């Protein structure tokens, strides 16, 4: 039953694609911009976890928390000192700034880690879990469970809490939200903090699954996240999660049934095809075409 093996492997990968996509979608929802530096936030999380877990040798839980904190702080600093002063500027400026930011972070990581590849030791000492012919690593299960529970939390937050509603209001009309007493600075700060936390969590959780870390990992991860977010219709929480799992599964199927080498570019093909032929994606509501 290769079908189920592929399905489970795909879903496991999809877990962190979905986390990345969620981070992107959050910022898109609040600020109407795409964060091209998100891959580097992931990298910050992954390398923090690596340093704490593999170099210092503290328990994995501590490494996870440290990674989430580090990425959150990066997200908040970027928002407060870089993005907020220019939030009124055209899209192109904002996006270009995040592109520049991504290379700054990558360059900073390069100073310490160079161009080498680092291996992340496995976290759980127990062997893989075997159900029928499907073999799952405990780490993959943790990752998928974390993604699913977090997306439920986020969905509920946007639906029921004041902060979620304020985020929605801010993205629809910044001045209007301000007039109704929304502290938009706080909204932006918390959005970027949450997005950073998601990126950091994705980094810490998927580093043992990927097992190979290098400073360039951000670009690769970012594009997978884009594919997931675009497939789900940019701007939808549910879409990002479903898109993430769908991209993960599709990759595995393309890799097995068509050609192994196509596995890596299927994400790019998905982005292009979806944007050209079906720009709304699975759950998109926003009109992405021109007026």
């Amino acid at each position: 039953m290769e079908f189920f093996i592929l399905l489970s492997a795909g879903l496991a990968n999809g877990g962190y694609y979905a986390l990345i996509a969620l981070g992107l979608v959050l910022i898109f929802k609040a600020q109407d911009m795409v964060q091209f530096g998100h891959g580097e936030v992931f990298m910050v999380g992954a390398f923090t976890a690596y340093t704490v877990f593999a170099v210092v040798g503290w328990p994995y839980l501590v490494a996870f928390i440290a990674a989430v904190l580090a990425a959150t702080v990066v997200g908040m600093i970027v928002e407060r000192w870089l993005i907020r002063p220019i939030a009124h500027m055209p899209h192109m400026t904002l996006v270009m700034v995040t592109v520049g930011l991504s290379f700054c972070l990558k360059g900073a990581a390069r100073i310490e880690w160079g161009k080498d590849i680092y291996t992340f030791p496995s976290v759980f000492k127990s062997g893989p879990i075997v159900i029928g012919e499907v073999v799952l690593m405990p780490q993959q299960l943790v990752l998928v469970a974390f993604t699913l529970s977090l997306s439920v939390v986020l969905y509920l937050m946007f639906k029921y809490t004041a902060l979620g509603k304020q985020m929605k209001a801010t993205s629809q009309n910044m001045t209007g939200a301000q007039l109704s007493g929304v502290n938009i600075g706080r909204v932006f700060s918390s959005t970027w903090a949450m997005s950073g936390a998601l990126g950091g969590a994705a980094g810490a959780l998927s580093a043992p699954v990927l097992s190979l870390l290098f400073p360039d990992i951000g670009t690769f991860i970012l594009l997978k996240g884009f594919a997931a977010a675009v497939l789900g219709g940019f701007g939808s929480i549910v879409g990002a999660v479903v898109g993430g799992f769908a991209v993960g599964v599709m990759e595995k199927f393309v890799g097995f049934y068509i050609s192994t080498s196509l596995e890596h570019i299927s994400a790019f093909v998905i982005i292009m095809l979806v944007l050209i032929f079906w720009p709304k994606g699975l759950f998109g509501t926003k009109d992405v075409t021109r007026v």
Partner: protein
Amino acid sequence: MRISAFFEARWFPALFLLFLLVIPLTTNNYFQFVINLVLCYVLIGFGQQLILGYAGQFSFANAAFMGIGAYTTSIIFTLNVPILIALMAGGLLAALVACLVGLPALRLSRVYLALATIAFGEMTTWILTHWNSVTKGGDGMYSPVPVFFGYSLDTDTERYFLIAIVCFVMVMIAQRMLASKFGRAFIAIRENEMVASCNGINIPLYKTIAFALSGFYAGVGGGLYAIAVNYIVPDNYDLFQLVIHFALVMVGGLGSMYGVIVGALVLTTLPEVLRDFQHYQEMLYGVLLIVFIVFIPRGVAGFLKDWKILPREILVHGWREEIPHVREAAKTAAVFNVGAGAEDRGAEH
């Protein structure tokens, strides 16, 4: 006489050509190599300037076009085709691909175009790395020594003449073209698409032309680059190459022809000067990009124009500065939405 009048004089192109031809007399081998790179980057930067600075399309694909040009030129040239035809072929193939990449631009709003083109760029790098039979894979390939009418161009100085002449001709063509209705149409599309179409500009046609021209310049520039460095690897045409292009256009000045030349000079010589700090190169480009786009959006050329050293370029001011007191209003209302990318903000809300 103002200095800017000098650049506007009728005889200036002739003088500039003479200047280009005299340069090799004053250089040593290494310096000549750097000058060659500067000229290649003038063309490549021109491709980026056309699509980003003039037509206002947020395309991430120019590094890929450059790669396509470099590989096509080198591969065709190994088949004993004259070098100029090989360069043309590289440019034309890149232009053709650019037309196809431009198709989504006819429908998608800017951020989505960026996503589609970045995916295309990564895919091109991947294809260049994995199409072993043609591109020799990730190890890269030596680009053959160019032969120009039976005369083989072995040294950098000899190559310089080929590069300089191709570059000069193409810059002249570009200058003429941007002063014509094409240039005005591109700028109109950048400033406001709806107004442009109300003024009878065929938007799909001109956008496609902008993509094709941009691809052509990047392709020919890439071909010359392959000749100049003699060795091509797929990794050279990834996102980092694109950031160099962005930084080049930003540092020079968005929407300025002179800006491309200034940017190419600065960004090609800077890494050579800072050779000891190679680890910091990525950070350098990132910081340059951020600083220039936030604080100095008109780039170095903007200063030079204010000081009347460079002549003003009609209709081409880069991003316009918003007046502070209308900034708040501009966030929600469609008034004063000027500058590239501005109308998205108004339209989506």
